[in-house]
C-alpha cells in the first residue's frame, strides 16, 4: 500500500478541498439573498439578473478566466486598489483562485436555491407575512427550513464543481505548488510529463471522492423527503 502511494503528495488535494470549502462558504452567504430575491421578485430586471448568473455555465472557462485575470490585474482599478491599499495581489495566488471560483460556481449555488424557494407554497409565505413576519424572518424561519434538500444540493454541487474546476484555475492561478496547484491542475501536469502512474492514482482518488459526495447527497434527499411525508 505505502509502495503504491510512494511519491504521491496530498497537497494538491488539500488545496482543492480548501479552495472548494472557502468558495462554498462565501457563495452560500452571497447567493442566499440573491436566490431569495430572484424567487420572489416580479421585477423586469429578473431575466437580466438570471442571465448574468447563468453565464458561467455556458462560457468557456478560459473566457471567464481571461476576463477575471484582466479585471483583477494591476493595470485595472480593482487590482490596483487592492494592491495599493491592502498590499494584496489578486492574481496568481490563493485569493485570486477564491475570487475566480466564486464567479465560476455562482450558478451552481444560486440555481438550486432559487428553484427550492420557487417550489415553496406561496400561500405559506403569505401566511408568514400576514402573521406579522418580515421578509428576512420568513426567509430564515419558514423558507430555509423547508428547502433543506435544495440547500444540500446547492452546497454539495458547488463544492464538487469547485473541486472539479480546471480552466479558470489555470488561467487565474497558474500552477504554483502549495498556492494554486490544485488536484485537477496537478493531474494535467502529470499527463503532460507522461507520469501516467501518478495521474491514474490522482484521478482514481478524485473519482472516488466525487462519487461518494454525490451518493451522500442523494441518500440525504431521499431520507428527508420520506420524513416530510413523501411530497416535494
Amino acid at each position, binding site marked *: 500500500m505505502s509502495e503504491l502511494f510512494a511519491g504521491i503528495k496530498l497537497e494538491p488535494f488539500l488545496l482543492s478541498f480548501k479552495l472548494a470549502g472557502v468558495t462554498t462558504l462565501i457563495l452560500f452567504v452571497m447567493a442566499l439573498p440573491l436566490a431569495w430575491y430572484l424567487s420572489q421578485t416580479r421585477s423586469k430586471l429578473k431575466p437580466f439578473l438570471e442571465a448574468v448568473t447563468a453565464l458561467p455555465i455556458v462560457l468557456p472557462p478560459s473566457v471567464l478566466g481571461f476576463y477575471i485575470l484582466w479585471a483583477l490585474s494591476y493595470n485595472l482599478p480593482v487590482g490596483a486598489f487592492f494592491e495599493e491599499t491592502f498590499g494584496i495581489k489578486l492574481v496568481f495566488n490563493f485569493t485570486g483562485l477564491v475570487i475566480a471560483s466564486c464567479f465560476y460556481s455562482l450558478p451552481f449555488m444560486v440555481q438550486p436555491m432559487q428553484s427550492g424557494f420557487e417550489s415553496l*407554497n406561496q*400561500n*405559506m409565505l*403569505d*401566511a*408568514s*407575512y*400576514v*402573521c*406579522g*413576519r*418580515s421578509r428576512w424572518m420568513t426567509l430564515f*424561519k*419558514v423558507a430555509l*427550513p*423547508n428547502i433543506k434538500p435544495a440547500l444540500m444540493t446547492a452546497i454539495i454541487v458547488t463544492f464538487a464543481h469547485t473541486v472539479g474546476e480546471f480552466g479558470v484555475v489555470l488561467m487565474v492561478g497558474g500552477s504554483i505548488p502549495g498556492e494554486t496547484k490544485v488536484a485537477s491542475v496537478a493531474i494535467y501536469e502529470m499527463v503532460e510529463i507522461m507520469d501516467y502512474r501518478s495521474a491514474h492514482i490522482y484521478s482514481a482518488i478524485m473519482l472516488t471522492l466525487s462519487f461518494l459526495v454525490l451518493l451522500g447527497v442523494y441518500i440525504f434527499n431521499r431520507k428527508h423527503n420520506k420524513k*416530510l*411525508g413523501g411530497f416535494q
Partner: protein
Amino acid sequence: MIAIDICKTLYGSMGEMELSVDLRIKEGEFIALAGESGSGKTTLLRIIAGLEKARGTLKVGDEVWMDAKHTLPPQKRKIGFVFQDYALFPNMTVLQNLLFVQKDHALATQLLAMTGLDELKDRLPATLSGGQKQRVSLCRAMMNRPKILLMDEPLSALDPAMRTKLQQEILTLHKNFGTTTIMVSHDPSEIYRLANRVVVLDHGRIIQDDTPKKVLLKTSGSQKFSFEGELLDIVQVDIIMVAIVSIGQQLVEVVISPDEAASLHIGERVTVSTKAFAPILSNR
C-alpha cells in the same frame, strides 16, 4: 367600521376585468363572499390583507391601511388569513405554528382547547388529517387577535361531515372573539349557518348585498318552496314524461307535459317549485 373602496385591473382566463368594490362593513359582522370563480373574490381578500396592490382606499376603524399615498404592509395590518390549502409551516409543530404569530401561550392553549387540538399540539402538520390541518390554520389566524379574519374557501377541500363540524367551530370562535370576518364560500348551507350578510361578486362588481335569507332563498311570488337543480334527463314512461333533476346531492323525478318537455334542454339549470301542496316534513 371597515370602509373598502378599491379598484384593480385583473388579467384572468376571461381576459381583462376591472375589479371595483365599494363596501362598508360593521365591526363584528360575518360576511360571506360568493360568486363564480374568476369573479375576483380571492383577489379582494388578498387586497384587504395587503398581499396584493390596488388603487383606492381601505380604512379600518381610524387606521388607514391604503390610500393614494401609502400602503400599510400585511405585517402591520393585524389580519388573520385562512387559506384553502391550509398553508401551515411544515417544519413547525402545531403549537409552534401558533406561537410563530405571537408568543402568547395562554391564547394558544385556549384556541387549541376550543378546537379539540390540545392532544395534537406537538405533532407536525404532515401527520394531521385535512380537517385537523384546517383547524390549526384557523387557530393560527386567530393568534394575533385579528381586526379582520379572512377565509378563502376554508372548508371546500373537506368532506361534508368534517365541514359541518368545522362550521360549528368557526361559529364558536366568532361568538367568542367577535372578530369581523369575511369568508369566501360557495356552499349555501354554510353561508346560511355562518354569515349574517352575503355579498355576491360577478365580473369584479357587487351584484347582490343582503341577508343570506334574501339572497339564498330563491322563492318568489306565491311559490311555497322552490329548488334549483340541473336537468339530467327526460324519459318517457308510458304516456307521461318524467324529468330527472339533480338538486344538491339528490335526484328528483318530476312529471312534466310533452309541451314542457319540448321547451326544456338537458343540462340546463331549472327551478323545481310548487304552490298548492302543503309539504309534509317527517323524521327520518
